[in-house]
C-alpha cells in the first residue's frame, strides 16, 4: 500500500500493520499530533498510565505474557528519561518493546528547547537500536524496521524518536515489507551449525552426570521451544534446572525438575550444576547470580551453550561447544537427531538420579512454621495452593526477598506466565507488569507478588488499573523492611540496618480504597486461605497486605564469593553461620 498521510497518521497505520492492539502511554506536548490520531480511531486501545516508567514496565509485562512486542508512547524530555529504567530493564531481560517518543521540532533540536533532551543519545546504551526520524518519508520504513529489530534475534527494546514537525508533515506511507529478514545489516542466525548440534547430541549420549541449565531464551524463542525442551528432557531423562527468567519453560511438576538454580536456587539444582559432567546451557547467559564463584564453577563438566547471541558465548564462562542459533531451531534438530540415531542415555544416569534424590532429601526450602505469625514462605505456599491447576494465572513480582520466595515456592507450569525483573532488578516493575499482562489477558488472574518497599515505587499505577477496569491483585509480603537489603546488611555489615526499615508505611487497605480498589489485611496464618480466596474473587484491583514475620531471611543462599557446593541452607543458618557466611573477598563481589 502507498498512500499520502501525515507522520502522526503513519504511526497509527504502522502500529496497525504490525499487529498492535494496545499502547501504554502518557501524552505531552511533543506527541500531541499522535494522540490526536489515537482518539480518532478504535483499532488500537490506549492505556493511560500514571508515570512513564509504568508504561514501560506495562509494555514489558504485556510482551512477556504474550510473546509479542509491547508498545509504549511517551513525550519528549522527562517523558523519555522516565522510560530509561524500563528500557534498560527490557534490554537486560531481552524483552521486545517498541517505544515511540515525541521530540521537539527538528529546527529546535540542539537548542535546549522546552522538554528537549538527547533521547537517542541517552537511550543508545539501553536499547537494541534507536532512531531519530528527521524526514517524514523515512518514518514508515523506520517504524517497520523497529518492529523487526525488537522482535527478531535476541529480542530487546527499541526507541523511535519523532520530532513534532515530522508528525505534522505529510509523506508517503508504505506497508511493511513481505520479508523483513532481508535487512541490509541485521540478520540474526536462527539455524544452528549441524556439525556442532550432532557433536552436542553425541556428548549427551555419553554423559553420566548431565544437567540442562535453561534460561529466558527458551521463553523468548516461543511456545514451540518450551514444547521441544520438554520432549528432549523426556527422551533423555536428564535433570533440568532453570534461571529466574526461564521458569515455566519446563513444568515445575515435571519429573526431572530440580527447581531454580543460582544464589537463591535449590540445593539440588546447584549441587547438580557443580558435580555434573555435562552441562547443556540453553538460552541462559552465566549471570553472576547464577555462577557464584567463577573459578569454582562446575569444575568437572564439559559445557555446551546454545544462544542466539554470539556475544553471550565465552563472555563469562568458557564453553567447550558453542551453538549459535535460535533455541527452538536448535532443539528441533537435537530432538530429531537424538531420535533418529536411537541414542540411549548412559546407565550411570540412574546413579546420578539417586544422588540428586539424596540432595533433594535435604529439603532445602523447609522453614519453621508458626501458628501465630505468617511466615512469608507459608503465605506463598497458600497462594500457590489457591491458584493450583488454573492455567490463566500470570504472576509478576517486584524485586527483593519476596521475588526469590515467589520463584522458590510458586510452581510454574507453562511459559509466559512469570513476569519478573531478572537482570536489572527493578523495584517497581511488578504492578505495571501485572497491568500489562491483564490488558493482554482480560479474563486472566494477574497477581503481583510484592514487598512493602518496592510496591511503593510504582503504586500510582493502581489508578491506571481502576480507570481501565483492570483487576491486578498485589500480594504484599509486608515486613516493614527492605528485606533483601536488611538480609545483606546482616550478612555483610554487622547487622547495622542502615535505612532499610520503613518507619511510616501507608495503611495499604486505606490506600487501596483511596485509589478505588479493595484492600485486605491479614496478620494471622489461619486467616490466609479465606483472605486469598476473597482476593481472587474480587472483581477489581486488590492490595493484599500480608503482614509477615519481619526478620525472615531468604534461604538457601550461595553467599557472595562462594561456589555452588558452599550453599547456606536454612537449617544451618544459625546467627553465627550467617555472620560468617561472606568473607572479605566476597564482600567486594556483591
Amino acid at each position, binding site marked *: 500500500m502507498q498512500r499520502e498521510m501525515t507522520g502522526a497518521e503513519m504511526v497509527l497505520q504502522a502500529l496497525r500493520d504490525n499487529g498492535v492492539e494496545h499502547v501504554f502511554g502518557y501524552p505531552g506536548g511533543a506527541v500531541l499530533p499522535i494522540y490526536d490520531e489515537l482518539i480518532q480511531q478504535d483499532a488500537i486501545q490506549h492505556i493511560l498510565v500514571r508515570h512513564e516508567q509504568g508504561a514501560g514496565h506495562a509494555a514489558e509485562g504485556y510482551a512477556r505474557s504474550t510473546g509479542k512486542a509491547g508498545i509504549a508512547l511517551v513525550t519528549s524530555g522527562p517523558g523519555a528519561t522516565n522510560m530509561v529504567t524500563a528500557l534498560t530493564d527490557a534490554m537486560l531481560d531481552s524483552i521486545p518493546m517498541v517505544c515511540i517518543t515525541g521530540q521537539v521540532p527538528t529546527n529546535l533540536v540542539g537548542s535546549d528547547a522546552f522538554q528537549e533532551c538527547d533521547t537517542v*543519545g541517552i537511550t*543508545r546504551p539501553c536499547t537494541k537500536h534507536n532512531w531519530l526520524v528527521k524526514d517524514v518519508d523515512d518514518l514508515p520504513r523506520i517504524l517497520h524496521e523497529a518492529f523487526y529489530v525488537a522482535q527478531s534475534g535476541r529480542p530487546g527494546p527499541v526507541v523511535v524518536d519523532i520530532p513534532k514537525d515530522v508528525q505534522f508533515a505529510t509523506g508517503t506511507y508504505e506497508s511493511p515489507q513481505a520479508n523483513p529478514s532481508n535487512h541490509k545489516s541485521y540478520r540474526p542466525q536462527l539455524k544452528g*551449525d549441524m556439525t556442532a548440534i550432532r557433536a552436542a547430541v553425541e556428548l549427551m549420549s555419553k554423559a553420566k552426570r548431565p544437567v540442562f541449565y535453561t534460561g529466558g531464551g527458551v521463553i523468548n524463542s516461543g511456545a514451540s521451544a518450551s514444547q521441544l525442551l520438554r520432549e528432549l528432557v523426556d527422551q533423555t531423562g536428564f535433570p533440568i534446572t532453570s534461571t529466574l527468567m526461564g521458569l515455566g519453560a519446563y513444568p515445575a511438576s515435571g519429573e526431572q525438575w530440580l527447581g531454580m538454580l543460582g544464589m537463591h536456587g535449590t540445593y539440588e539444582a546447584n549441587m547438580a550444576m557443580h558435580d555434573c559432567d555435562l552441562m547443556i546451557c540453553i538460552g541462559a547467559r552465566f549471570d553472576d547470580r547464577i555462577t557464584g564463584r567463577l573459578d569454582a564453577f562446575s569444575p568437572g563438566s564439559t559445557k555446551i551453550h546454545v544462544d542466539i547471541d554470539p*556475544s553471550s558465548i565465552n563472555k*563469562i564462562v568458557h564453553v567447550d561447544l558453542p551453538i549459535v542459533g535460535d533455541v527452538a531451531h536448535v532443539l528441533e534438530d537435537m530432538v530429531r537427531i537424538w531420535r533418529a540415531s536411537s541414542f540411549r542415555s548412559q546407565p550411570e544416569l540412574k546413579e546420578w538420579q539417586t544422588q540428586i534424590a539424596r540432595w533433594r532429601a535435604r529439603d532445602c526450602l523447609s522453614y519453621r512454621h508458626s501458628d501465630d505469625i505468617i511466615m512469608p514462605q507459608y503465605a506463598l505456599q497458600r497462594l500457590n495452593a489457591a491458584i493450583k491447576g488454573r492455567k490463566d494465572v500470570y504472576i509478576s513480582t517486584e524485586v527483593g526477598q519476596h521475588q526469590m520466595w515467589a520463584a522458590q515456592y510458586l510452581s510454574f507450569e507453562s511459559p509466559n506466565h512469570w513476569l519478573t525483573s531478572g537482570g536489572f532488578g527493578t523495584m517497581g516493575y511488578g504492578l505495571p507488569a501485572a497491568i500489562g499482562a491483564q490488558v493482554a489477558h482480560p479474563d486472566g488472574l494477574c497477581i503481583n507478588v510484592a514487598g512493602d518497599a518496592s510496591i511503593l515505587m510504582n503504586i500510582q499505577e493502581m489508578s491506571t488499573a481502576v480507570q481501565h477496569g483492570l483487576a491486578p491483585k498485589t500480594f504484599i509480603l509486608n515486613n516493614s523492611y527492605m528485606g533483601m537489603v536488611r538480609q545483606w546488611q546482616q550478612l555483610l555489615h554487622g547487622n547495622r540496618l542502615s535505612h532499610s526499615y520503613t518507619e511510616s508505611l501507608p495503611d495499604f487497605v486505606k490506600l487501596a480504597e483511596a485509589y478505588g480498589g479493595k484492600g485486605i489485611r491479614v496478620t494471622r496464618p489461619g486467616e490466609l486461605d479465606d483472605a486469598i480466596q476473597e482476593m481472587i474473587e474480587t472483581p477489581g484491583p486488590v492490595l493484599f497486605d500480608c503482614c509477615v514475620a519481619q526478620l525472615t531471611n531468604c534461604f538457601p543462599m550461595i553467599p557472595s564469593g562462594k561456589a555452588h557446593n558452599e550453599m547456606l541452607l536454612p537449617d544451618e543458618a544459625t546467627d553465627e553461620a550467617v555472620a560468617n557466611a561472606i568473607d572479605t573477598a566476597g564482600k567486594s563481589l556483591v
Partner: protein
Amino acid sequence: MNAQKTDALSAYFLAETSDVLETHTLSIIVDNEPGVLARVIGLYSGRGYNIDSLSVSETEHEKHVSRVTIVTTGTPQIIEQIRHQLDRLVPVHLVRDLTVAARNSNQEKPLERELALIKVRGEGDKRLEALRLSEAFRATVIDATINHFVFEITGRTNKIDQFIEILTPLGLVEVSRTGVAALSRGSQGLKNLQDEI
C-alpha cells in the same frame, strides 16, 4: 563461531589467561548514518574496552557505507567479546579481526599505515638536521618558511613514533595523526577473510 568440540576439561577460569594482553586491528563496515560512530565508541567506553587508535571514513559513497578501523588491546577473550559486541550493533554489516586473519595465513601482521603531519620550528643546524632526517624517513615537506617545516609522513605506527621522537629535540611544535588504516594482505576482500581463532 561454532568452534570445534574439544575433549579436555573446560578452561572455565577466565583469570588464568587474563594477563596476556594482545593488540588487534579490527575492520568494521557500517552504515554511514547519524550516530553510528557514537554507537561504536559508546560500546567501548560502556563496556570498558580500550581504543588505541580509530579511523573512519565513508568508503562506498553510493551505498553510504563507512569503514572503521580500530586498534584495540585486551585479553584474547575480551577481543573476541569486542568483535561479537560490535557485530551485534544493528548498523554494523561486518566485523573482521585483521590480526587473527593475518595469523591464520601465517603472516605477522595485516597492512597497517598511518599518516602524520608534523610541524617543526628551528634555525641553523637543527633545521638542516630535521630536513636530513625527513629524507631518511621519506617524509615530504608540505609547508615551510625560513624557520619552520611541516612534514607529511606515512608509515607503520612505530615508524611515525620514531620519527616524532627524533624530531622532538629539533623543535617539534605539534603533530596531527590519522590513526591506523589497515587492509589484509593477499587478494581476498574483508568478507572472505578467515578470522576464527
